[in-house]
């Protein structure tokens, strides 16, 4: 039975009015042109402020950690929904308290590609789309309770970023030059960690002072330490939603490294995060015949 197609504002008002949920987390138009911002609607009258368009680039599942005790409705794109599946597997979210308002998405605008002085949507070409969306395999949410639009076509898409493929073919010096160049940009503001739904540790290793795992100097090795460790913590959990890459104020190319990680997990453990609610996360299990030849 295909999920019920509804209007976003209608369903939000209904859910709030009949008390099914305490808050609806969605998007509303931002104060700057060509921008959508997260919105937390608690009053049925405000349901009309909710919108969904191709500027809704944040992953709202990240906010669900703050509403653990409440019953929440959240607007999820296909990629966001994979984060929900992942968090349910990790016992962080209770599906009964969640209402998923699925939003079929044909790809969203990467705010970093929008020229600073652009104000009208028409002036935007089609090269402002987030690169990851071209490789998206889940344009239509599959487990949502409602859909706020007709399903969009699902084109055959290359799996991973092409820079990942390019870097795999070059010498390690070249790879190191690229990695070092990207990490030198990082200012350790932790926006990538704070927008990521999979990053929810109470005390992150970066905030631990006893032991002091990591220092926050401008030496590139500290940025490398942080990003490598975070990547390892995302093994088999990163869904490739791209929220971190879009949130980075200095355009560090996180997508290439996320895609490499997801490619490894797919090749070696035949696992993709957030697709199958029943599957076991790869780092919580093992097999006798796991790859062993790299160990002497």
């Amino acid at each position, binding site marked *: 039975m295909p999920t019920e197609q509804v209007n976003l504002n209608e369903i939000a008002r209904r859910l709030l009015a009949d008390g099914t949920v305490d808050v609806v987390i969605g998007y509303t138009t*931002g*104060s*700057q*042109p060509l*921008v*959508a*911002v*997260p919105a*937390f609607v608690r009053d049925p009258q405000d349901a009309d402020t909710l919108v969904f368009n191709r500027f809704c680039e*944040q992953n709202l599942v*990240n906010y669900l950690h703050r509403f653990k005790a409440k019953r929440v409705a959240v607007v999820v794109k296909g990629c966001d929904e994979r984060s929900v599946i992942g968090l349910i597997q990790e016992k962080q979210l209770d599906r009964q308290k969640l209402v998923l308002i699925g939003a079929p998405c044909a790809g969203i605008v990467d*705010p*970093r*590609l929008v020229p*600073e*002085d652009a*104000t009208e949507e028409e002036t935007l070409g089609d090269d402002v789309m987030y690169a990851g969306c071209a490789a998206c395999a889940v344009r239509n949410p599959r487990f949502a309770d409602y859909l706020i639009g007709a399903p969009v076509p699902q084109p055959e898409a290359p799996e991973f970023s092409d820079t990942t493929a390019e870097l795999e073919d070059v010498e390690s010096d070249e790879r190191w030059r690229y990695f070092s160049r990207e990490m030198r*940009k990082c*200012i*350790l*503001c*932790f*926006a990538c*960690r*704070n*927008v990521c739904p999979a990053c929810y540790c109470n005390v992150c290793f970066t*905030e631990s*002072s006893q032991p002091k795992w990591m*220092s*926050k*100097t*401008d*030496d590139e090795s500290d940025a490398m330490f942080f990003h490598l460790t975070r990547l390892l913590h995302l093994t088999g959990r990163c869904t490739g939603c791209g929220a971190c890459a*879009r*949130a980075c*104020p*200095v*355009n560090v*190319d996180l997508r290439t490294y996320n895609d490499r990680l997801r490619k490894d997990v797919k090749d070696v453990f035949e696992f993709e995060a957030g697709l199958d609610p029943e599957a076991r996360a790869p780092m919580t299990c093992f097999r006798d015949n796991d790859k062993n030849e790299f160990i002497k």
Partner: protein
Amino acid sequence: MRTKSLSRDDVQALADALMRRHRVMAPVLQDGVYRFEWLRDDTTLALPPGGIPKVSMKSALLPRTEVLFYYKLGKNTEATAQPPAPAAQVLFGVHPCDVQAIKVLDAVFSAEPYPDAPYLARREVTTVIGLGLPRDRTPQTAFFERLGIGSMDSRDCDLFLADLNNGRFVLEILTDKGEALADAIDSLPDASEDDLARLAELRSDASAHVTADIDIADLKERLSKLFEADMWQEVAERCIACGACSYLCPTCHCFDIQDENHGNVGCRVRNWDTCQFDLFTKHASGHNPRTNQQQRARQRIMHKYEYGYANFGIPFCTGCGRCVLSCPMHSDIRNVLEQIQEQPEP
């Protein structure tokens, strides 16, 4: 006041000339982001259309990591040594709102009773070359005019490079520090009459649009009564407590002091820090005066618009709009300012 005329290529040539005897920090374009970087032979100067690079020049005066001193440790012994004195440096292409941000840093770090020697030593060898732009090239996110700063404002600059919007520039030499760069400047032709006329016209147009409608004294008074207001709940609701806005803000100067060890040698450094992180105010006993995001979001606004003005007489915000541009959740500090104005008089 001596003035020179330059074409677009002369500007690049000027930057190269300055690089011969000074470290030059100037805007460069890298992967779609205009950043203030130390110019190297393989980097080319790229003045942003809006004049405000996303990564500010703060790191030239308050580096992201600055060695306070080096040390060597014995079994029970320790010895320290001071870092070498900072080299002469030139900040090239600093927008007027960033120049006023430098004045904020100067006020904080030269305040008695403990003037900050490392900062002042660096500040003394710094020459600031301002960048003036016609008013209509102001980025949408910037609101420095509301804080009394014009886009052609040459206050507190050693030299001032005005973009005449027709491919030509005028360079004004304003202070002795500016004159000290004479060897790189004298080869340039003196400013032509129509260049100067166009500059005067653009300058008057720019200063005419300076509304200065944000009244800081009034804002301070209002904020001093809004500590317990529940507007902060809404301001902080979307905020994910990252450091993007504070690290890119040219006036945010909070720092952390850490020791960096390697065997028996090391150095005590200060790193950028932000009131948005939990460790910022967490006591060793575990007590933390600020535990939730409302309190932290409030602290950032209060520090900029109330505490700064109360202690130093100047607001800690120059309306550059970088926090609006860089926030992953597109929070807009201008909305917060409006909310403050709309709060009912207690």
